């Protein structure tokens, strides 16, 4: 049974897992949907009440029924590396590839439906609240007056993109940034704006979850750190990421979150305040983990490889995903 990894060639974080799987003898096929059709080829037939399909990439051929798991890591957009790309061909290729993969009994990290839902930050905040995680007061609005009222109630605010995406034309980054007092909120009318009470943090926490294995890492806010630098991704801090224990109450809530979201993998960001409380910021359903493993030596790649290499579910139980129980959060 084969592990299928959907990612781009330059993804060296995926390399960390492929190397692990190679070491255990588990067959791996790695491909980028951007190369379909061309470097990646597929075929599937639905005949006499059954489905049989094949995938080929890099000289490897795998049957759809021979897949034990699918890791959706950093896949390119289907059919974007063909000679004559088009939106139509992309949709055709995406439907063919993902539609056939959905027809297999393979386990997913993460299933496309779960991934799509999990990317919505408003839904993340809602689910985190329901699961008992502390969430900083947040407003998402296009009403300038609502923003002004919110700023009166919570004078120390940050702004961040709702989607987490960065504009590309021209390429720009939009880090989480502090909002100065007396800011003019008129431009809130021109796009949904996410304002959040700033957590006066003493550390950033990255909690990487692989199935039911948790790896928490902590990066302290350094002495003399610029108080305007609130986004750890863009900060100039030289403080290291260090392994830390996950508080049991947080772990229980995160378990509930993952189960409800039907995620096999999630990278949670928290801000730790002066009282040691972990405030939920977001959950990246395909968040990076290589930088954490490199600094902390936590065996995250091995955990991902172990999860992917676990036996495929019994075909008689197609719903045997990692998290199938419904759960009632607090």
């Amino acid at each position: 049974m084969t592990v299928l990894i959907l990612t781009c060639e330059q993804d060296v974080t995926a390399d960390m897992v492929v190397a692990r799987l190679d070491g255990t003898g588990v067959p791996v096929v790695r491909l980028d949907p951007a190369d379909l059709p061309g470097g990646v080829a597929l075929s599937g037939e639905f005949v006499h009440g059954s489905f049989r399909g094949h995938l080929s990439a890099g000289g490897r051929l795998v049957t759809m029924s021979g897949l034990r798991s699918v890791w959706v890591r950093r896949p390119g957009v289907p059919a974007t590396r063909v000679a004559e790309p088009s939106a139509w061909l992309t949709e055709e290729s995406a439907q063919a590839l993902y539609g056939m993969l959905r027809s297999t009994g393979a386990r997913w990290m993460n299933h496309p439906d779960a991934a799509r839902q999990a990317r919505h930050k408003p839904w993340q905040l809602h689910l985190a609240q329901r699961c008992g995680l502390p969430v900083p007061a947040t407003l998402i609005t296009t009403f300038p007056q609502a923003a002004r009222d919110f700023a009166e109630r919570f004078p120390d605010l940050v702004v961040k993109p709702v989607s987490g995406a960065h504009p590309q034309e021209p390429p720009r980054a939009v880090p989480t940034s502090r909002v100065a007092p007396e800011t003019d909120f008129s431009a809130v009318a021109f796009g949904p704006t996410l304002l959040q009470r700033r957590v006066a943090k003493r550390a950033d926490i990255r909690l990487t979850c692989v199935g039911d294995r948790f790896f928490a890492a902590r990066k302290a806010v350094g002495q003399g750190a610029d108080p305007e630098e609130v986004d750890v991704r863009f900060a100039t801090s030289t403080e290291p990421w260090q392994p830390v224990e996950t508080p049991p109450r947080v772990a229980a809530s995160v378990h509930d979150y993952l189960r409800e979201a039907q995620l096999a993998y999630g990278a949670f960001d928290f801000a730790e305040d002066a009282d040691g409380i972990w405030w939920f910021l977001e959950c990246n359903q395909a968040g990076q983990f290589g930088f954490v493993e490199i600094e902390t030596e936590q065996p995250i790649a091995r955990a991902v490889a172990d999860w992917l290499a676990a036996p495929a579910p019994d075909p008689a139980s197609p719903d045997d995903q990692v998290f199938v129980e419904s759960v009632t959060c607090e």
Partner: protein
Amino acid sequence: MRPFALNYARPAQQLEVSVPYAYDSRLQLNVLPDGRLAAHDYAVLRELGATTSTAGSKTHFDD
């Protein structure tokens, strides 16, 4: 008409740096010129920021 959040945008750090490794489709791994696996050379990965939380942000939402 600029959305409020874009008042806080800054020029993106160009990630188009040349990397000292290349993808080997036979191994399905990136390999350094001396044949070692890029994933095993933490110094190279650190220097390039290839595994950091902003790597790939251009095309993916998940940091």
